[in-house]
C-alpha cells in the first residue's frame, strides 16, 4: 500500500487468506482473480462503501491486506494506473510461467 490511491475511480485489492493469491473486489461483492474484472468505484462514497465491505471480508477470514488503488476503464477491462498494481495482476515478469499470467493466455 505504498502508492496512495487518490483518483476518483478506484478498485479494491486484497490477498486471499489461504493461499495469498491476489484478488480484487468484483461486481456483486465477489472476489475475482483477474484485475480486468475488478469493479470500479466512482467517487468517495462508493469507494468508502466498497472498502467497508472488504474490511468485513477480512474479519470473515476470506482475505487480508485490503487496500484501494487507482484504476482506469479500458476496452480490456479494469486497468490499474500504477505499474506495481498492474504487476500484481500479472505475476513476476521474470517468470512468465508463474502466477496469473501462466493461467490466462490472454493476459
Amino acid at each position, binding site marked *: 500500500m505504498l502508492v496512495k490511491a487518490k483518483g476518483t475511480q478506484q478498485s479494491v485489492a486484497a490477498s486471499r487468506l489461504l493461499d*495469498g*493469491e491476489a484478488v480484487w473486489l468484483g461486481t456483486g461483492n465477489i472476489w475475482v482473480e483477474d484485475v480486468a474484472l475488478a469493479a470500479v468505484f466512482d467517487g468517495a462514497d462508493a469507494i468508502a462503501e466498497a472498502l467497508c465491505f472488504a474490511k468485513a471480508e477480512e474479519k470473515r477470514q476470506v482475505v*487480508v491486506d485490503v487496500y484501494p488503488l487507482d484504476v482506469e476503464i479500458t476496452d480490456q477491462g479494469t486497468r490499474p494506473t500504477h505499474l506495481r498494481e498492474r*504487476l500484481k495482476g500479472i505475476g513476476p*515478469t521474470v517468470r512468465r510461467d508463474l502466477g496469473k499470467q501462466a493461467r490466462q493466455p490472454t493476459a
Partner: protein
Amino acid sequence: MPDTHSPALRSNQPADAHAAVYRYDEFDKTFIFERVEQFRAQVERRIKGEITEEEFKPIRLMNGLYLQLHAYMLRVAVPYGMLSSTQVRRLARIARVYDKGYGHFTTRQNIQFNWPKLEDVPAILHELAEVDMHAIQTSGNCIRNVTTDQFCGAAADELVDPRVYAEILRQWSTLHPEFTYLPRKFKIAITGSPNDRAAVQVHDIGLIAKKDEVTGRVGFTVYVGGGQGRTPYLAVKARDFVPVEEIIGYLEAILRVYNQLGRRDNIYKARIKITVNEMGPAKFLGLIEEEYARLPRQKFHVDPAIVDAIQTHFAAPPWADLPAVSESFEAAKQADPAFARWTRTNLTAHKTQGYAIATISLKPIGGIPGDAESSQLETVADLADLYSFGEVRVTHEQNLVLAHVRQDDLYALWQALDKAGLGTANAGLISDIIACPGLDYCALANTRAIPVAQRIAERFADLDRQHDLGELKIKISGCINACGHHHVGHIGILGVDKKGEEFFQILLGGDAGTNAALGEIVGPGFDYDGIIDAVEVVVNTFVKLRQPGEIFIKTLARTGHAPFKEALYARA
C-alpha cells in the same frame, strides 16, 4: 557411483557427517518441534477465525512468513551460511512439493520460497525441523545473528575462525538481559582474514581479523556504526587492534555506550550509525574508550578453554595429505580453456595443500540471480557429498560454495556443474550481479531489479569480454531499503518511482571489500531501457581510461567521477 575421495562415503557414515553445520541437541530439537506445533495451532485458529489478522501477523512474521505481491513468502534461516547435503536435499524437496520447484538465495544468506500456501506452512516447518532447520526470524531490538565470511575455516588467508567468535558473541549477547532492549536491532559481522568478505563496514559492529606484526598476536580491527538502508554510513574504525581475548570486553563497552545514548524516540534515528554520526565519531569513540577503561576487564576476558571447546563444534573435516601441485588439475587446465577460465574466477586458495575453495555461480547469463531449481539443488548436494565433505555454503553475494575440494577433483566437479547450468565462470565479474527481488515479488518495491540484472548480464554475455574487464561488482535494489546492497556496488543501481514509471539511479565507487566505500549518485536517473545503455557507457569509459591490469574501482579512484559523468550526460 563416481570415484570419490569422501572418507565418509567410503566408510558407512552419512556423506555429510563432516559438514560443519550447526547440529541441534535434544533441547534445541524439542524447542523447534514445539514451535512448529504452536504455529500449526495458530494457523488453524487463524483459518477458523479465532484470531484476527492483526493478532496473527506478528506471529507469522516471527515464523518467517511474509505476504508479498503475488503470494506468501517463507524465509528460511541458514545459520553462518552453512548447509549439509541432507539439508540441501530437503530444501529441494520442499521447493518441489510445496512451492514451484525453486528457491531463492538472498543477500542475507538465507533461502526464500515465493509461493507457499498458508495451510502448508506448518508442514514445511516440520520438514525443516527434521533436518535441524527453521524459519524463525530474530526480530526485535536485540543483537541479531552474527554473520561471518563464506570461506571461514577454509581460506588460506584466515587468521582466526570467525564462527568461533560469532558463537562466543552469540552466547555473550543471549546471556545479557539489558542487550535485549537496545534502542534498535544490532548486527555484527566478522571476517576471519585481513581481506574483508563479510562487508563488515556496513554493519553496526564489524570485526576484521588482524595479526600484530610485532608481537605476532591475533586480534581484530574493530569498526562501529555502519549500515545500509535509507541512511547509509560506513563504519568508523574504533580500534586498529583488539586482541582476541579482549574482544568481548571491548564490544561490551560499545554496547553500553550505545544503550545509554541511542535514540529511542525515532525509529529511523535509532541505529548506532545515527548515534555515532550525530554525536561525531571522535566523541563517541572517546566514550567507548572511557567505558572500556572503567570495565572490570577480567570479567570479560575470553577464556582460551572456551575457545577450544567451541572450536570443536567447527572442527575441520579430515583433509588428506596431498601434494601441493595436482598434475591432473594442471593438465585439465591446459586441455580445456573453458575450465581454465572458470578456475581463474571461481576458485579461492585453501589453507590446506592440494585443496581449493570452489564458488558455484547462481548467475548464469540471463538467469535470475540467486534462484536455484530443485534439480540443481540436488546436483549440488550430490557433488558436495562426492567432493566436499557433504557441506554447502551460501554467500551474501547469492552464490554457493564448496569449501574443501581436492584439486584433483576440480575438473570433474566443474564438468558436472556445467551440465547442470551451474558452471558459469563469472564469480566477481560484471555478470555476477546482486539484485533484490524488486517489483517482481516485493510489495515495497519501486521498480524491478531482477530483469535489469538479466539484461546487463546479456549485454555483457561474452565471457572473454567479462574476463577482460576484470572484477566489477554491480548491485541493484528496487527501493531505498537497499536489500540489493546498491550503496556498496562498484556500480550501484537504485530503482525509484518517477510518476508511476520505473527510473534508475546510478551510483559509482561503492565497495563492500576491505577498502569499503559508499557509492555516490552520479547524476540524473535513466529509464528502464536507458539504464542498460548507461551501464555500458560507464564500462566503456573505464576501458578507455584504464591502465594495464587496472580494475574498475581502481581506475575510478584514480580518475574521479568526472570522466564518467561526462560520458553519461554530455552525449545528449
